[in-house]
């Protein structure tokens, strides 16, 4: 579905992503993990067309993204950011339905779809008519996910989607989100710095460091057989008490 071919990105003379190639598996969940500044968010933004690569190509469904087709392509991607990125002047329902209405859906079509999505994301109905400032962080994130799913895109891009949530809310939402991805057979690409989340979501985990892929595969593999010191340090930094072996491996 999504493919990077030797894509690199730099801001000024600072390179944030070395030439990198990734073929994201359709229908699977891929997690990009690494510390701040490793290039994982830049990579996601390149996929969404928010940034253009300095070299290489970003292919979506076999077509290279460019300024002419990006608007169309975005209707086929759902994008979720930390705290939802909701428009504060619109109610939850208006946020979710904005794009569909702009594309000319009827009120009834919009209403039906919002109902479905509220069920799917387990958003309490009263929250639909409230403004983002009037609902909880977890509810905001659920509305953000609904908005991303509104046009039923095959791909979901999630940038630290749980970053602003407390652990209990986070736990519930992770469960729900995984169920949704599985049920709808979405290609999901999630950015996080949390190993637990990566292991929970990721069919495939890609660890980035200083603009390069450091290691990829299953999370367990990274923990048990870290490719280098960098991975070891990152894994240890998570202080996972259930896996004392990881410490021994260094």
């Amino acid at each position, binding site marked *: 579905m999504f493919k990077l071919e030797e894509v690199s990105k730099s801001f000024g003379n600072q390179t944030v992503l070395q030439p990198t190639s990734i073929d994201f598996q359709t229908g699977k969940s891929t997690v990009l993990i690494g510390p701040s500044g490793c290039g994982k968010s830049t990579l996601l933004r390149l996929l*969404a*067309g*928010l940034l253009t690569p300095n070299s290489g190509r970003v292919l979506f469904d076999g077509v290279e993204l460019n300024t002419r087709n990006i*608007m*169309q*392509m*975005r*209707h086929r*991607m759902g*994008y979720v*950011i*930390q*705290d939802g*990125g*909701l*428009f*504060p*002047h*619109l*109610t939850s329902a208006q946020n979710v339905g*904005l*794009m569909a209405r*702009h594309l000319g859906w009827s009120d009834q079509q919009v209403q039906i779809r919002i109902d479905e999505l509220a069920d799917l994301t387990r958003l309490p109905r009263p929250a639909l008519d409230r*403004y*983002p*400032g*009037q609902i909880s962080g977890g509810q905001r994130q659920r509305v953000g996910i609904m*908005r991303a799913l509104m046009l039923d895109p095959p791909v979901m*891009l999630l940038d630290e989607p749980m970053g602003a949530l407390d652990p209990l809310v986070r736990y519930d939402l992770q469960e729900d989100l995984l169920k949704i991805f599985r049920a709808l057979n979405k290609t999901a690409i999630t950015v996080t710095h949390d190993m637990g989340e990566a292991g929970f979501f990721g069919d495939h985990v890609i660890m980035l460091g200083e603009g390069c892929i450091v290691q990829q595969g299953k999370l367990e593999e990274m923990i048990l057989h870290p490719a280098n010191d960098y991975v070891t340090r990152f894994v240890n930094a998570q202080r996972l008490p259930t896996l004392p072996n990881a410490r021994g491996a260094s």
Partner: protein
Amino acid sequence: MRPRIASLLVGLFGYLSCFSNPLGTSAVHAQAPQVGIGSKSFTESVILGELLSHLAKNTGAQVRHRAELGGTQILWQALITGEIDAYVDYTGTIREEILADVAREGTKIESEGDMRNALAARKVSMSERVGFNNTYALGMRRSIAQRLGITKISDLKNHPELQLGFSDEFVERKDGWRPLKEEYGLPHTRIKVMDHNLAYRGLEKDSIQVADLYTTDPEVKYYDLVALEDDLAFFPVYYAVVLMREDLTSRAPKVAEAIMRMQGLITPEEMSSMSAEVRLDRRQEAIVAGEFLNSKLNLGLSLPQEGRWVEGRKIIERVVSTTWEHLFLVLISLGLAILSAIPLGILASRNEALGQTVLGVVGVIQTLPSMALLVFVMPLFALFGMGIGPAPAIMALFLYSLLPIVRGTYAGIKQIPASIRESAEVLGLDARARLRLVELPLAQPSILSGIKTAAVINVGTATIGALIGAGGYGSSILTGIRLNDLSLILQGAVPAAALALVVQYGFGLLEKKIVSPGLQGS
């Protein structure tokens, strides 16, 4: 949509033209020449304007007196662009202000003949003196002057014990106290600096014995003062003369001839006594001027019954009509400003360099003094015959209203967090849809507050409209100040303040109504 806007503009244009020239071109009066007379915003000038008006009207002409215009430059612009045909000015002013540019270019402007020649080059003719010289003088109470035997300024040298009290303008001027003291070798050192009006009281109470005054001030008569003879001819002369467009002689020869009857018509005492009737007895300028002409030239004008300014019905009528005029200025200028400033603000938010330029330019406009701005825009409107009246005032108000709205729009859009911007972008909304559905609604509170600021400032600033004959509350204030009439000042100032409060409150309500609840109360 487009033709509708075009026809709206044409309509507005037409309305403005009518406003500025209500005489129109009615067929009934096709034969009667139309004549415009002007005057400045001080009483003597208004009386002189009424005298000119009576003389012109008496020939059967249709006359419009543009009273109380805001200054020499505005009168002069109006005269050369043909908005008015004649007004009375003073030789000193003609030399120092109107012909200052000619003098700078090297032409010698000293005698009245020099002035007449220089003015003729601009198709303006200057009459012989009207008969009085309105300049600075030093004045004393007649009784004290007589007792001490003082008749001229030189005599003050022998009376160092006298207390002098001057207005601060007189103390500062380059034809004021310091050079005067030097010229005459006066010994006085302790000067009381005081308000001009208070100086008259000071003379009356004998707390000062000598004050500066204008030779035709009505108070000269009221307080029985004498102006000391300027025996060394220190003060520049300000002889009143009529300035008239040359083309009036061919267009309306009878009117031109009648207007020239002003030459040698008025003595200093007569001028001062007419001013006293208006300022001290609160009589109307038109009636005072008419009575003077009836007695001096036996014109036999029929004059309206005396009506005092301060009468209940008149107050209401005046407040209502000035309110309409004021609202007209405010609403049109604000409307045009909103239509232009919001797009400008959006443009500014799109490109940093362009943004700084736009904000810089509208910021500079804001710092221009209103008088300068008016004098600047008047000639542009004069091309369409709208140099005097609401059009230039609306233009000035429009320009002043731009900054708050442009800045409100710019800041409102700029303050939208990057995450919200990106969310709109990745949803797949194109730039226009993002602007309409996300950016403008989010910027709305900031835009509204910019419009509110502009409206409140506009209500206050619209009082300058009176300077160029656009009416509004400013005309009550201006006349009130001129006549030292507190009631009249309040008839302008109170409604203006009330209107500003209404605007403030109205925008509060509007904000509650149209701004998304999601953006309120935070």
